[in-house]
């Protein structure tokens, strides 16, 4: 396979960014308006990692718009990838790994959709995908690396090697990945989009620099003064952010470091639905959790309050 030039064309990506306004003004909007910035056919980079700090509220709002032909790029893809496949929203997935975790086994949806050719599945090593976003964040077409060399993964995305101009060694020229849109969930931001993340940073800061359009949700909107008192904590500059939405529990039932734990029992119920009825299990889940609730708050209310309180308690215990 060969990589689409759009993914690594640093020149075109830079011109797209130069044409954009880079405002230090108000970014706050609604989930619906933020999700409307995604167009059919876009390449979306999804922040967080696996079931950690996944921008689930944004994905929830996006899927309700019934998008089509999206390419989803995420370092480790959890069941949001299954949602997009079953909802008919994804034509391609770019990732290093897909599933929830060992206790839940192989993703039956990934198996069905890839084995039957219903979705294109492009696999990169975890570091290589990280370097693809990092190269884009740096505005260069590739980064040299020693990873993936010699493996059959080199042929999957159409990777090329280069001879090092200094040492003559063979290096993997890991191509940049410039997404159209990045979806990111953070702990706190001011209303102009300066974003702060607690705990493990995953790849979000690179995603925010790599994408043309950045859509962000935050657990908490704080004053500009509070950001200015702790600027060392800011990892996403406000001028890079196009839309910001205040969404408490914006990753739930995935985890958000120090704020709430994930809900493995909910994952088990979800996977049980797939074991019983395959893709129809996911379709039923989407009907109940994504399409039916009138608002994101209504979606969150489908999880009982005590369960959510326990998730908060566990997070406190694990980070103190």
């Amino acid at each position: 396979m060969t990589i689409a030039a759009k993914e690594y064309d640093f020149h075109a990506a830079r011109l797209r960014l130069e044409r954009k306004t880079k405002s230090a003004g108000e970014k706050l909007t609604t989930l619906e308006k933020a999700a409307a910035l995604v167009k059919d056919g876009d390449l979306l980079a999804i922040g967080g990692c696996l079931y950690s700090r996944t921008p689930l509220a944004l994905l929830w709002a996006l899927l309700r718009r019934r998008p089509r032909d999206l390419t989803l790029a995420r370092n480790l893809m959890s069941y949001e990838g299954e949602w997009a496949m079953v909802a008919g929203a994804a034509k391609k997935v770019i990732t290093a790994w897909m599933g929830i975790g060992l206790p839940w086994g192989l993703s039956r949806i990934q198996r069905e959709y890839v084995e039957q050719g219903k979705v294109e599945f492009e696999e990169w090593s975890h570091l290589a995908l990280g370097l693809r976003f990092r190269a884009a964040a740096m505005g260069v077409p590739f980064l040299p690396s020693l990873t993936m060399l010699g493996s059959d993964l080199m042929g999957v995305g159409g990777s090329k090697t280069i001879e090092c101009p200094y040492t003559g060694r063979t290096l993997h020229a890991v191509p940049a990945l410039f997404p159209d849109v990045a979806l990111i969930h953070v702990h706190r931001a001011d209303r102009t989009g300066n974003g702060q993340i607690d705990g493990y940073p995953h790849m979000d800061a690179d995603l925010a620099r790599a994408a043309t359009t950045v859509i962000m949700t935050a657990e908490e909107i704080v004053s500009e003064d509070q950001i200015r008192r702790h600027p060392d904590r800011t990892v996403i500059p406000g001028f890079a952010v196009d839309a910001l939405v205040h969404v408490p529990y914006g990753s739930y039932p995935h985890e958000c470091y120090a704020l709430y734990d994930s809900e493995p029992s909910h994952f088990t119920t979800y996977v049980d639905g797939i074991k019983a009825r395959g893709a129809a299990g996911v379709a039923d889940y989407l009907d109940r959790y994504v399409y039916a609730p009138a608002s994101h708050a209504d979606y969150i209310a489908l999880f009982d309050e005590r369960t959510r309180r326990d998730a908060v308690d566990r997070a406190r215990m694990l980070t103190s």
Partner: protein
Amino acid sequence: MSAPRSTVTANELLAVMGARALKDDTTVFAGVGAPLMAAALAQRTHAPTLTMVIEGGIVGPAFKPGELPISTNEMRTAYRAQMLPGITDAFLLAQRGFLDVGFIGGAQIDRFGNLNTSAIGGYDRPAVRLPGTGGANDIISLCREVMILTVHEKRRFSERVDFVTSPGYLTGGDARRDSGLLFGGVSRMVTTLGVFDFEPESRRMRLIALHRGATVDDVQANTGFEVLVSNDLHTTEPPTDKELTLLRTLDPKRQFIG
């Protein structure tokens, strides 16, 4: 004093043997399950100055007994860690040369230590699509040495893997180095039957030790190709009570040790 063999689970055996291979004053790249148990056990026995690096971008985690992580990036993995550098930067520590040992497993393994966790029966329209490499390819490409921990089942050991997700010695001999992989390679493989290395010239899998109760015939019968056998074949010491007690203290609900 050793515990009765029958009471030792597959993952306990792999964790104990993996732990014993780790040295003090070194670093290890470990995933969840048996590798993480091995590293945690080594720290609690002979290697207190061993540092773990975890794929989720976590350096020096402590782990809370009874709260071991399911994934490499969650609060249980980061519990009382020393540093949270992010995923890309954690792997770059390995590319720089800071990681002495990496642990990996695989669905399909061949005689040259190549592993497949991508697809059985062709990449584009596979018979079985597997989850993918995750960080396994990076670990095997970038750590100074790599140890494979796996259950020994015939279906896992094929003459050739269908897809090289994680390169061992590729087609043997110098093929790995010739591909541009200047560092590392698989130094050990611990299975539920024994311990293997890769013969230095041909780079073919070679049995160097059997766990107590296992035979060369067992190994050959459960491997889909001819395994070399070292002239110096020995028998491993079974897990001790102390090792098993430490593992069971870490995982009292037996979520990971089985």
